[in-house]
């Protein structure tokens, strides 16, 4: 499954929330979108899973405009893991995951053995099968997130959207959730808050600011001190960690010394800086 987003613009009254956004995710890639609060990350995701209809632009899954797809067909292609959790009405974990079958079932169809097997496999895959009868509301943040990922698995979509899947999770669960997603091998587009996690897990990154994509490329191309200073307003040092071989970002408090000239992993020449002057 591939995602192609072209010139997507969305406004609320006079305010432009998304402006000319372009994103491409190739089959099997794990691509992250970063940006400060209010930069438009969630709005972009919402356009892709059809909670928002952009004012202009084009969003395609495997070449088909998502807004020309029937709602169920779109949901068979795209599974979304949201931060939103049900409030007043209680479901047990099994029922939550079984909901993933919704786009596959006609009005008159009953759940069959295949659906139940899919739910069981999905729960096994995220290590939550023994929680099947637990009320979803009683789970911890990490457990909830894994159940929602299981639902996405039961949905059998080949494209996965995650909206800050590591938010509010203990560090152990942050790694666990992203390891899980990485291991699925499903084409994934995820909003992330944590730059280090994004740099560690994503194949490519998009960086948003004020509704625009301001940088795009590999983690090394996007996560650079100059770009972080401009977009997030922070001083940071970016190093290649000796054990992970991945980028490691150290944020420098305002009162700390200016980064020394010897800082490693200084901007590769291939940095892609889009828009913004």
């Amino acid at each position: 499954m591939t995602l192609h987003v072209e010139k997507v613009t969305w406004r609320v009254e006079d305010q432009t929330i998304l402006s000319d956004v372009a994103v491409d995710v190739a089959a099997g890639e794990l691509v992250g979108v970063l940006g400060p609060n209010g930069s438009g990350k969630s709005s972009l995701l919402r356009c892709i899973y059809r909670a928002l209809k952009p004012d202009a632009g084009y969003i395609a899954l495997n070449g088909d405009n998502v807004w020309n797809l029937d709602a169920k067909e779109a949901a068979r292609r795209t599974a979304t893991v949201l931060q939103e959790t049900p409030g007043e009405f209680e479901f047990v974990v099994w029922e939550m995951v079984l909901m993933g079958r919704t786009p596959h079932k006609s009005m008159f169809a009953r759940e069959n053995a295949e659906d139940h097997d899919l739910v069981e496999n999905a729960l096994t895959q995220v290590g939550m099968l023994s929680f099947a009868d637990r009320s979803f509301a009683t789970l911890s943040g990490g457990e909830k997130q894994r159940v929602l990922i299981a639902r996405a698995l039961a949905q059998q979509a080949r494209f996965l959207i995650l909206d800050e899947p590591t938010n509010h999770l203990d560090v152990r669960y942050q790694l666990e959730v992203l390891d899980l997603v990485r291991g699925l091998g499903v084409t994934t587009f995820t909003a992330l808050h944590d730059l280090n996690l994004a740099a560690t897990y994503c194949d490519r990154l998009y960086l948003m600011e004020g509704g625009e994509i301001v940088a795009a490329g590999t983690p090394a191309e996007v996560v650079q001190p100059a770009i972080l200073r401009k977009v997030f307003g922070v001083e940071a040092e970016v190093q290649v960690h000796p054990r992970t071989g991945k980028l490691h970002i150290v944020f420098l408090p305002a009162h700390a010394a200016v980064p020394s000239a010897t800082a490693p992993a200084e901007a590769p020449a291939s940095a892609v800086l889009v828009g913004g002057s």
Partner: protein
Amino acid sequence: MGTAVEQASQDPGETPPAPAPRAKRRDARFPLAVLALTAALLVTLTLAVTIGPVAISPLTVWQIALARMTGLAAGEWSAAHENIVWLIRLPRVFLAAIIGAGLAVVGVAMQAAVRNPLADPYILGISSGASLAAVLVILMGVFKFFGIYSLSVAAFFGSVMAFVIVITLAQNRGTLSPIRLILVGVALSYVLSAATSFVIFRADDAEGIRSVLFWLQGSVAGAKWSYLTLPLIALVIGTAYLILQARPLNALVAGEETAISLGVDTNRFRRVLMVVAAMITGVMVALAGAVGFVGLMMPHTVRLFVGSDHRRVLPVSLLAGAIFLVWVDVLARTIVQPEEMPLGVITGFLGGPFFIWLMRRNRNALGGGRS
């Protein structure tokens, strides 16, 4: 990614292989529960007909009913008994059952549609619209040309008018947001209630005011067989539609965007839900007045027992609502004989404490987290 999966199992008490989840097996037992409730409803209907100023045995009730339906007479009973059973009590008991079932089912649908546990069938101003129309009929004699049906016809149009106003005003850029629906519904209810009160206070017809107050609290007194057709059709069609939409209803309850991501066109679905719910409620209100409580509490009571899956909540609510309102009506017509109490008085006194007791007994339910 085996490591992530292994780490995931954090409950040391669990020993693999785990037994099949209860949730998976629960479906098998569910038809039995429905069967048991259906039997309970039949018993309820029978007993409710036997109870009254003239006691009639359950056997006689069935004999009379069968004789009238099939023409095969068996056993002996007086013409007076036959009239009491066939012309007075049976239609009344059936009407109570249909109203109770309908309001409970609509309550489930409304709570899902606006994703709010405080929603009830009247959330869209339907009862206040009907009430104002009813008051105008009873106290000011409008709609007289509809004869004995003027009250029902007026109440139905009143509820439809209120519904249309709420839906129109709650629209925002082509979408119907739950919170706007609720707030517009509440605001309009205040306006219509104010108008109702205004008419009542301006009237000096004491008997009329009494019958207005009675109507506002709901009653199935004076039911006839001919009254049953319309609400029964509304109930059957409405419930069938809702049960077929159980999966989208579950998704909607789990969250607006969750439902969208699961392929539910929430805007369209919510609109259809509103129309279905308004039609059922409008018919019910037209015939029995604004019976409170059932539509709000019955769905919650049922959820405490069967969870939130609409495939279970809807049929069980229907049966439980029917049983509940039949017994409420039995009390309404017996506790202050020969006077009658409006249904709302009984549902409030009986249902309120029962529900609070039930909720406190299940300490973890309804916001406490159930495990």
